């Protein structure tokens, strides 16, 4: 068709419609969206840390027990080891995935699950022990912040473990479809991010708390 305006381009030199049959990358669309969700999760922790910061002055403990009174360094370090080895186990799961090794992926998931479960068990044991001693979140603002921040992290671990269980079933049942691989990659982002969050929780809540 000819144009009555100027600047008519040669139609054959111009690409108007997509011919490339390019199928969009389902996997990285999924992981990108999941990472965005993780960043909003990071902001949840940011705000919780801000609350902890404000509520960790000595008067916020209302004369009651402070973390210095009850945090046992060795115990928390054990939790750290459990979590970090779990993260490492998941890392090896990803290496197995890279090599298409289904048995490797499944045993890696089990490893991460059990070690993460150990972390959670240690955490629950700790909380039960503290509550038994009357060191509860209702005791003071500082303790409220301490408990909620640490247990929010623990809650994330719980959801991660549940997710690992689901992935065990899905990998066995469906093998390495695009959806399953996408989910494993998202879980990697989630689980490895828990290591990052734990560094912050460990240093700025447990260790810092020991100085109050």
């Amino acid at each position: 068709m000819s144009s009555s305006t100027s600047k008519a381009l040669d139609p054959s030199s111009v690409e108007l419609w997509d011919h490339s049959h390019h199928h969009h990358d389902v996997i990285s669309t999924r992981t990108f969206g999941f990472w965005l969700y993780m960043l909003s999760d990071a902001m949840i922790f940011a705000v919780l840390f801000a609350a902890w910061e404000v509520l960790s002055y000595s008067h916020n403990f209302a004369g009651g027990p402070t973390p210095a009174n009850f945090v046992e360094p060795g115990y928390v370090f054990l939790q750290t080891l459990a979590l970090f080895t779990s993260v490492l186990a998941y890392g090896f799961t990803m290496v197995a995935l890279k090599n298409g090794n289904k048995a490797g992926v499944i045993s890696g998931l089990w490893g991460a699950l059990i070690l993460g479960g150990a972390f959670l068990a240690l955490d629950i044991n700790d909380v039960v022990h503290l509550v038994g001693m009357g060191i509860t979140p209702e005791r003071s603002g500082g303790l409220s912040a301490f408990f909620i921040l640490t247990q929010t992290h623990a809650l994330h671990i719980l959801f991660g473990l549940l997710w690992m269980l689901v992935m065990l079933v899905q990998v066995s049942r469906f093998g390495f479809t695009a959806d399953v691989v996408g989910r494993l990659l998202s879980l990697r982002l989630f689980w490895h991010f828990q290591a990052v969050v734990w560094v912050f929780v460990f240093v700025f809540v447990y260790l810092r708390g020991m100085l109050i």
Partner: protein
Amino acid sequence: MLVDLQGPWSPLLGRLALSQIPYENPILAPLFVVVAIMGVAIIAALSYYGKWGYLWREWLTTVDHKKIGIMYIIIGLVMLFRGFMDGLMIRTQQAMAVGPDAAGYMGALHGYLTPYHFGQIYSAHGVIMILLAATPLLVGIMNIIVPIQVGARDMAYPYLNAVGLWITAAAAVLVMASLFVGDFSHNGWFGIAPIFELPYSPGVGVDYWMWVMQLAALGSTLGSINILATIVKMRAPGMTWLRLPIFTWASLATNIIALTSFPALTVALALIGFDRYLGTHFFTAGLGGNLMLYTDLFWLWGHPEVYFVILPAFGMLSEIIPTFSEKPLFGYVTMVLATFGIAGVSWAVWLHHFFTMGAGPAVISFFSVATMLVGIPTGVKVFNWAFTMYRGRLRFETPMLWSIGSLFLLLVGGLTGMMLAFPAINYMVHNSVFVIAHFHSMLLMIVYAIFGAVTYWWPKIFGFKLNEAWGKAVFWLFTAGTVGVFVPMYTLGFMGMTRRLDYVFNTQWQPLLDVQMLGIAFYSLSVLAFLGLLYVSIRDRAKSWVSHDAWGTTHSVEWMTPSPVPFYNFAVVPHINARDEWSWRKEHGFTDLRPDHYEDIHMPKNTGIPLILGTLTLLLGFGLTWRIWWLCALSLALIIAVVIIRSFDTDTGYIIPADEVERMERAHHERAQAAVELPEAGVPGGVTAYGQDKPAAKGEALGSSGISSPEGSRA
């Protein structure tokens, strides 16, 4: 239970009891009857016309971003009406209850609302207008337009999109339920420590408020992930960043803000929840709590939130104004930079909502200067819009009227905002109605932009234009209302009237309050005019069908689709060659929008899971509010189970074969040919893209080559 609950609690019903239903309230009881009758009428009509299947298949289980967007807009409009009724009640009470001799009705000492009721009304008004009216309207428009503008078939996560919608709907239902079961919060829309603590607010009101906001926040966060992933990952080939339509840029900035700031609201409210449900001491006045921490955490969200609502409005203006000035947008790059400048700075200003808290002078100065800095990129935008209009061929159709009105409101609201950025001024007017007038000017700026955008994009989505005369009537009536209500409010603010007064002690303010009632009268008329607009436009739609380029001078990708847009958006994804792709194509004569080949299209299937998740979320919110623990546990477990079960579903899409696509496209083409009318006189355009071989019914007058804009109008 870990806390001291006043009032009864039973394991089966939690705090629910018959006494929580306001039988005797003279306003609520009749309202309930009206609502019940309307509900029954709707159900009866659906059954009589046999539309349940249609409703389920086409709307309740859809994952189509356009339908989801329309449903968001419906929620927004209904809640806008509810919020308006709350506002009307506030204004009426304040006009009636002036001075110690003011009469009292219906159990109130003055006016007709008891303080108990009045507190709930202004709290609900704020929550509803911001989170359940403005936000869904904006999210709905972004939902509809952004995927088409980037040349995609749908959002990145269609299923998640539907989930976000139904969670937002759950929040709306929950807040409406608070009318008829229990009370709403008396604590204002943003909450005041320590009044929201259990001893001071022993009822369920604050709990309703908390969970409504949490659900709305969850919906927004999920939605923001979707839009961000769509813009980053699903752009059509050739759409580089500098070719992105300006509304899409605005949506990008908006959703970055949403993603990063809504978590602050989630935490702030969750911490109140822990105080109220577990007896912790985050915000208590003793045992190591910190009251102002709540204010800090809330406004950490609250300030980015206002930029979350205004940036899409700016984006809409940037789309509408160039179309009706018949010029491209002036300063595209600076617009984009300004948008991100605003978004970035908006993260460092939140203390200006509580200058009076008493932080140190260095802190206050920092936040004051940062607040003022936001004015610079905003000013850049205003000048860019002005320069777009300068020497353009302005057409004052309804969307343009709304846009220009919006700019005036931006000026007023922005300048008063700059005033408020000065701590010295702020200390004087903090908590007065001057602040209310300021933020209503800004919010109305957004509402104007929304109305303009709805009118602008309506023909694209529905295939016919809204009636121009009625549209203008709505605009002028609404503007009269705005002026009538808010100009006196600035004055009253300077005269010392504080906010949230259920009894106005100073009779000298009566004349101004009466002028505000006149404003309310105009608003009410505008609501009626809006209903008239819808009725007339839908009734006469056969006479106002449009082709794909409804306004003639549009410029971006979404105008390259048929009107209404088919469910798959594009038969073949376009390749993008320029910024303002559609203008570029018109300029170079590529107005034939039939693709040169057809392909199979992969589409997501409908699913009822999002609706189920929304319902479960509603039950969870209700259970948490009323402390019905078994309901909470059950609905939470079911939510997790449903999500997991859904993840095992591998059959979530279907393929439309290429010849089927071609058949549907041809049907669109034929329908467009048969039905397209020349737009009203004075409006060039109405291009029929589908072919020079079959001239449009009355389109020959504009030239058979189908070019819309006459030479020389592209600057």
